């Protein structure tokens, strides 16, 4: 396991309420896979991504739990120790590359800055490694594009530059937070293929955060589905898609219109996700669940493993 998260809780302490952004997260990410974390807005998927590298902005904080990266508990590390891991062994691909680059500095200089100051390379070494990574991400005409400012590059090219930057320290784990949301589908496909190559060819591990079941299906090896701050189901992608167990996972798959087949009538989920400051008692999904039983209203179901790979948080499977 490259990453092992136990009972992780991240709460935001607002003046008049506590927002339980993620709650009781248990997750193991094996080495050399694309691990997908799927959920709708407010499900806590981005908070989870940021918690892994301990970038939770106040008034939020990690309330309890552990995040083991190999044998180091990231929750317990000092900021100084953490900085040897963050941006080094673990890097991030942003959701919106245009806002993750400094608009007033040429792209190439921003990459150089990271290579020289964060990684301590000489200018010559830095330039060599940057060109190498740009080739890896198939950046067209790298010498020309590196002299451009962020606004002069297309979204797809900027995302390639951001991926090159994430690869500079030769990290073990890369967290990609909705890396293609801002991109068109043809460009999205190219970026997802590139992310897949990072795992298949370079043996990296990628955590891919997304709201799109299609992306998950085509790119990930394993996935976890999040709802209202918790993982409700996890397993191998093929199994999860061919036989989704949790009623929410099922509903999520059923609610998506398909480009590959005719659907007579979509079945929308009733209601809306709960507010994280006012979470329903019992199972968090029960107010929207067609199969809810009396126990679902009273007690929160545990995330229970059905076999070594598949786990579900639902009373139907206990």
């Amino acid at each position, binding site marked *: 396991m490259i990453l092992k998260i136990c009972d992780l809780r991240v709460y935001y302490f607002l003046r008049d309420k506590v927002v339980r952004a993620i709650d009781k997260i248990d997750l193991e990410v094996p080495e050399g896979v694309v691990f997908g974390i799927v959920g709708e807005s407010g499900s806590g998927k981005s908070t989870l991504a940021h918690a892994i590298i301990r970038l939770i902005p106040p008034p939020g904080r990690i309330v309890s739990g552990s995040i083991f990266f190999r044998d180091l508990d990231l929750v317990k590390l000092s900021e100084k120790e953490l900085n040897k891991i963050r941006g080094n062994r673990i890097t991030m691909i942003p959701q919106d590359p245009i806002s993750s680059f400094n608009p007033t500095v040429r792209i190439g200089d921003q990459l150089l800055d990271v290579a020289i100051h964060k990684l301590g390379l000489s200018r010559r070494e830095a330039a060599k490694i940057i060109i190498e990574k740009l080739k890896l991400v198939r950046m067209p005409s790298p010498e020309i594009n590196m002299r451009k400012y962020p606004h002069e590059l297309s979204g797809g090219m900027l995302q390639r530059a951001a991926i090159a930057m994430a690869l500079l320290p030769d990290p073990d784990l890369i967290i990609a937070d909705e890396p293609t949301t801002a991109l068109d589908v*043809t460009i999205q496909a190219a970026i997802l293929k590139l992310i897949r190559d990072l795992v298949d060819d370079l043996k990296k591990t990628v955590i891919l955060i997304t709201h799109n079941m299609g992306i998950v299906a085509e790119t990930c090896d394993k996935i976890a589905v999040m709802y209202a701050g918790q993982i409700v189901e996890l397993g191998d992608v093929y199994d999860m898609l061919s036989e989704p167990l949790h009623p929410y996972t099922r509903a999520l798959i059923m609610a998506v219109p398909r480009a590959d087949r005719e659907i007579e009538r979509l079945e929308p989920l009733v209601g809306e996700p709960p507010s994280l400051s006012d979470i329903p008692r019992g199972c968090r999904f029960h107010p929207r669940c067609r199969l809810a039983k009396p126990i679902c209203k009273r007690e929160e179901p545990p995330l229970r493993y059905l076999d070594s790979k598949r786990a579900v948080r639902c009373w139907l499977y206990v």
Partner: protein
Amino acid sequence: MSEVILRLENVRKIFTIKREFLRKLNLVAVDNVTLEVRYGETLALVGESGCGKSTTGLLSIRLLKPDSGRIIFKGIDITDLGEGDLRKYRRHMGIVFQNPYSSLNPRMTVFDIVAEPLKIQKLKDRSEIRKRVLEALQSVGLPREILDRYPHELSGGQRQRVAIARALVTHPIYVVLDEPTASLDVSIQASILNLLKDLKKTYGLSYLYISHDLGTVRYIADRVSVMYAGRIVEIADKHSLFNRPLHPYTKALLNSVPIAEPGRRIKNKHILEGEPPLVTDDYVGCRFAERCPYADSRCFKETPPLEEVQKNHYVACWRYTT
């Protein structure tokens, strides 16, 4: 009455942008677009960002004026009408924008938002206005209790329902839907799509459905037009377009869509390289040629016209294959 409610004829829209000092660039956003929306149908307009699909939508209800070409609404040429004359026709038109967070005025109540088109139409009778607003809210499944609420008090799904109610309050027959579910979560998206389908049936509406999402297009459209770099490259009924696409771009687009089907993997896909060109007014050749695996020398020199190659199936390509 003809069966066509809206017809765009060779419509062209150019945006002039300043590049450097005294240098200008004429970008062709919409280039010789000809299309028809028929009574009671949903015509989808699909393409990637910057392809001109939203501009086409705005042109179709004359929120923009074309540089050339004609816009014919219900048999009447509205291309050159002034605002006063246009108002007579706007009553029959509606538009729903992508983002219900920015398309609703945060300082207006739901009632005022939905009533505004009626006031623009100079409807004065207050009880009539109230009746029409309540009717519109009811048709989109919103309770009357939200009349006095402000947009920030509503969820994304409710806001988009308010935007739809506003578009419908004047009883239009033609509605432009510009990515109406793009900013919504999938579980909310499904209910909005179902609502739009139901409203079309109940009120006999015709839609121009603008989207980059081929899944929603397949669900809601009757016919589909595909746009690339300002031009229509293919139009066909939904069945032909999804099952037998002809244009290489349509094929690539369909192939790129990620689908939640077990066993479908990105690794096995052929990926389209490159990006769409910036089209200036001196552009020649097929806009897709640079990225097209089938392009030959003619494609770079001559712009292919949109031609009917099978019954009701139009394609603009020199090299299409069936």
